[in-house]
C-alpha cells in the first residue's frame, strides 16, 4: 500500500470530522492557560483542508492543503500545521505516491519545520513532542493497521510522559508550575485526532 493524494485527502476528511466533534473539549483545554481557541481553530483549519481536491502529485496536494490551512488562521498551532504541510509538500515534490515506510521520514520533516518556525525544542511540551513520538513509533511499520496502532499509542504515551513536566513555549510557558499538572492542548488535539482516525483504520 502507498501514500497517495487521494489517501491524504480522505485522511484529512476524517481528521476534520474528529476535530469538529471535539471542538469544545479542546477549547476548554486551551482556556486553562491559553486563550481557549484551539478547538475552534483546528475545526476550522481542518474543515478548510478537507475541502482541498487531490492534485496530480503529492507535492501539489500538500501545498494546496497548506494554502487552505494558512488561509484559515494565523494562530500558533494553525501556522505550525500550515508550515508542516508546506514542508511535506516540498519534500514529496512531484511524486504521485510514497511507500508507507517513508511516512516516518515525512513526519520528521514536518516536525523539524515546526521546531524551526516555532523556535521551540523537543521536550518543550507541545504538539511537536507528540508528532515526534508518532514519527519515531512508525519507523518500522509497513501496514496501515500497524501504523494506526503505533501512532495511537505513541501519541497517548507522549501525553503520559509529559505529565509533571512544564510547558516551555506557547502561552502556557508563562506558568511552568501550573502547566505541569495540565496536558498541552496541542498534544491532546493530536492524540485525540489520531485516536479517532486510527480507530476506524485498525
Amino acid at each position: 500500500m502507498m501514500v497517495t493524494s487521494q489517501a491524504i485527502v480522505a485522511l484529512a476528511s476524517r481528521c476534520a470530522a474528529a476535530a469538529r466533534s471535539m471542538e469544545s473539549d479542546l477549547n476548554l483545554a486551551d482556556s486553562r492557560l491559553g486563550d481557549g481557541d484551539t478547538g475552534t481553530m483546528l475545526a476550522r483549519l481542518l474543515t478548510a483542508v478537507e475541502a482541498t481536491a487531490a492534485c496530480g502529485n503529492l507535492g501539489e496536494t500538500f501545498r494546496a492543503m497548506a494554502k487552505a490551512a494558512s488561509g484559515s488562521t494565523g494562530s500558533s498551532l494553525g501556522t505550525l500545521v500550515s508550515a508542516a504541510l508546506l514542508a511535506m509538500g516540498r519534500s514529496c515534490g512531484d511524486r504521485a505516491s510514497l511507500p508507507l515506510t517513508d511516512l516516518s521520514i515525512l513526519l520528521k520533516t514536518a516536525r523539524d519545520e515546526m521546531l524551526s518556525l516555532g523556535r521551540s525544542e523537543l521536550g518543550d511540551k507541545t504538539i511537536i513532542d507528540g508528532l515526534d513520538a508518532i514519527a519515531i513509533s512508525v519507523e518500522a511499520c509497513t501496514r496501515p493497521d500497524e501504523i494506526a496502532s503505533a501512532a495511537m499509542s505513541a501519541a497517548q504515551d507522549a501525553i503520559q510522559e509529559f505529565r509533571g513536566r512544564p510547558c516551555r513555549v506557547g502561552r502556557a510557558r508563562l506558568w511552568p508550575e501550573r502547566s505541569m499538572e495540565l496536558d498541552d492542548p496541542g498534544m491532546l488535539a493530536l492524540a485525540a485526532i489520531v485516536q479517532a482516525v486510527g480507530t476506524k483504520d485498525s
Partner: protein
Amino acid sequence: MNKFMNSPSNYVDESLSGLVAAHSDLLRAGQTGRTIVRRSGVRRGKVGIATGGGSGHLPLFCGYIGHGLLDSCAVGNVFEGPTLQSCVDAIDMADGGAGVLLLYGNYGGDRMNFEMAAKMARVAAVRSVLGTDDVASAPRQERQKRRGVAGLVLAFKTAGAAAEAGACIDDVTRIAEKTVASTYSIGLAWSGCRLPAAEAPLADMGSNEVELGIGIHGEPGIWRKPMGPADALVDEMIERLVEDRGNPGEGGRAVLLVNNLGATPVDELYIAVRRAHEVLTAKRIAIAQTFVGSFATSMEMAGLSISICFVDRETEPLFIAPAASPFWRVQ
C-alpha cells in the same frame, strides 16, 4: 454572556465591513480582505508601519490606521494571529519606498506569520519590533518573552509620529524599540469575555473576584482574590510597574494610559486615574500626559490595564504630534 452577532463565522468580516463603512478613510484590501489600509495610501518616501493581530481587541489593531499612526493592519480571527497572506499584503501595502516597520504584539502566531511574510514581501527594508509590555507575563530577566498589551499603542503613537515627520527606517525602528523598552503594563479584570464560537466565557470569575495580571485573551494572571477597594488595587498595579522598571524606579517623566479592557464604566476608569496620579506623584514621577479610554480591549472583559511609558526629550513631543485615526485623534 450574549454576543451581538449573526454567526460566529461572520463575526470578524461583518465587523470589518462596518468599520470601513463608518470610516471612509480606511479600506479593506489585499487578497483576503483582511488587510486594512489607508484609502489615501502611503505617502511616497514615508516609512510605512504595519501591524496585525487577532480580532476582539478593537481599537487595537486596525483602529489606529491613519495620519501620524499606522499604515496597514493584518486582521486575524478573534484571538488568532493574522493569516500569512494578510501579513504579506499588509507589508506590501505599507510600502512607500522608505522601508516598513512591523510593529505588533509578542504572540506566537503573529510572530510566525509576520516573519514568514517579511521574507515573502516585495519590500526590501523590513524591520520588526514586538510589543512586550505586560509585566505580569514573564519575569524581568525574560522581558523578550512577555506579551504585548495596551502599551503597544504608545509605540504606535511615537513611531507613527516619527514616520510622519520623515524619520528614516532606522530612526522609526529605534523610536519604537525605545518606547517598547520604556513601557510597563499590567491588567486587572473582574469578569471575562466570550469567544463568538464558544458557549462559556473565558476566564470565568466568581461574581466577587478580581484577577491581577490577566492577559488580553484571558490568559491567567498573578493572583485571583475577592474584589477590594479600587485604590488598593491601583496601588499594587503601579507598585509592580515601577518595581519592574528597576533602579531607579522612582522619578522621571511618564505617559500614563488607563485602558478599558471592555466593559468597565468610564467613571470607574477615572477612579483609577485619580489614584494613579496620586501614587505616581508620590513617587516623583511627573505625568507628561494621561490617556484614558478603550485602547486595547478584550471584547466584553470587565477590567482595566494601566501602562506607564517613561519618556525623554525625544519621545515626549511625539505624543503630542497630530494624529488622526478612527479611535485616536490628537490635534
